[in-house]
Every structure is written in structure tokens, then in C-alpha cells.
């Protein structure tokens, strides 16, 4: 339970609060205009973060699978498809 609360707290701090802040920051008054450079570059850096996270998750999973399911792994077991002549 504490773990889930922590997860929601982390998500709120990382994603929800900045998004709500930005949503209310769309100024119509002189001096409060949004700077499109800031928005666009922020989006770019966030997308880079996501891209690297996806890259890390995908490549990390593949590397782990290759490492874990190699024939020489101490816990390697033959699958039924490979027969019992190991």
C-alpha cells in the first residue's frame, strides 16, 4: 500500500503538477505571454528523456534475456520442445 502511495506521489510530482501548472500558465495578458521557445525546447528535452528510458528498458530487457537464457546459465533448463537429451 505504501509503495503504491509512493508511486502516485512520485507521478504527481514528476508529471501531474507540472502539467497542471502549464495548463493554467497560458497567459493572455501582456507580460504573461508564453515563450514558445521554452515550451518547445522543454517538450524536446522531455521527449529525449522518454526516448532514452524506452531505449534503456528495451535494450536492458533484451540484454537480460540473452544473459539469463543462454545455454551455459547455471539455472538453464531444457524446454519440452528441446527434448530431454540435455
Amino acid at each position: 500500500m505504501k509503495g503504491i502511495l509512493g508511486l502516485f506521489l512520485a507521478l504527481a510530482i514528476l508529471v501531474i503538477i507540472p502539467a497542471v501548472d502549464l495548463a493554467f500558465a497560458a497567459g493572455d495578458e501582456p507580460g504573461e505571454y508564453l515563450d514558445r521557445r521554452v515550451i518547445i525546447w522543454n517538450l524536446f528535452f522531455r521527449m529525449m528523456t522518454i526516448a532514452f528510458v524506452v531505449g534503456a528498458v528495451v535494450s536492458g530487457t533484451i540484454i537480460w534475456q540473452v544473459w539469463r537464457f543462454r545455454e551455459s546459465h547455471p539455472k538453464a533448463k531444457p524446454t519440452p520442445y528441446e527434448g530431454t537429451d540435455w
Partner: protein
Amino acid sequence: MSGHSNWPEWIYVAVVIALMCWVGAEAWNAERLVEHVPEGAEIIKVTGQQWFWTFEHEDGTKEIGELHVEVGKAYKFEIHSKDVIHSFNIHDYVVLMDAVPGRVTTVWFAPTDAGTHDIQCREYCGLIHYNMRGTLIVEDPST
């Protein structure tokens, strides 16, 4: 098979879906913010033609190759083309919008500091495309 579990796969799928939702939400929000033109933005009619830019302010003032604006005001560009497709770009302010014959495209910005910046065509539009440039001159407020 004993001891088999699908949980890792489901967690993997959930992580990927969550990341895609995040990407979509962030991009949607940024686009919404960038496309929201502030009320009271001054409209500047921008016309691209081979191979120069002309600008017409709300009060009828016309400029060729140069555009004078003021710090702290918001400007909405209505972009036209007289011949082929051009692309109106103020690199320093991340303003970029195609000028398409027969259509009016719009983009807005609000300059923050006085200075001069390059305006450049960003869509190959013929022989002298490379020199289809202009100058944005941002001045301090007059009032």
C-alpha cells in the same frame, strides 16, 4: 509448466503503454499551448513570393524584407504565398510555418528582448531560395 508467470510481460506492456500515454499527453499539451493565440495579438499579414517577404501591419504599414515589432506585444502572423510553397521562419523565436498558395496559415509569437533576428525561407522555392531572407527588428515599446 509449473512456476510460469505472465506478470513480467504484463508489467513490460504496462510500462510501454504508460510511456506512450506520457508522450501523447505532453505533445498534446505543448501543441495546445503553442497554438493558443493571446487575445489582442496584433495581426501581421505576411506574404511570401519568389524571393522576398512582405509584411503588412494592422494599421496598413507595409514593409519589405524588414519587420519591426515591439517587445512585450503578441503578434499573430497570417501567412500567404503568391506563387509556390515557402516557409516562414524566425529561427531565434522558433517560429516556423509554411506559406501555401491559396491558403492562410497562422502562427504567433511574443518577442521578449530588443534586437535583430534573421527571417529565412525554409522551404526550397527556386533558384534564389537561399537568399529569401529578411530581418526581424525587435524594438523597445514606444509607449
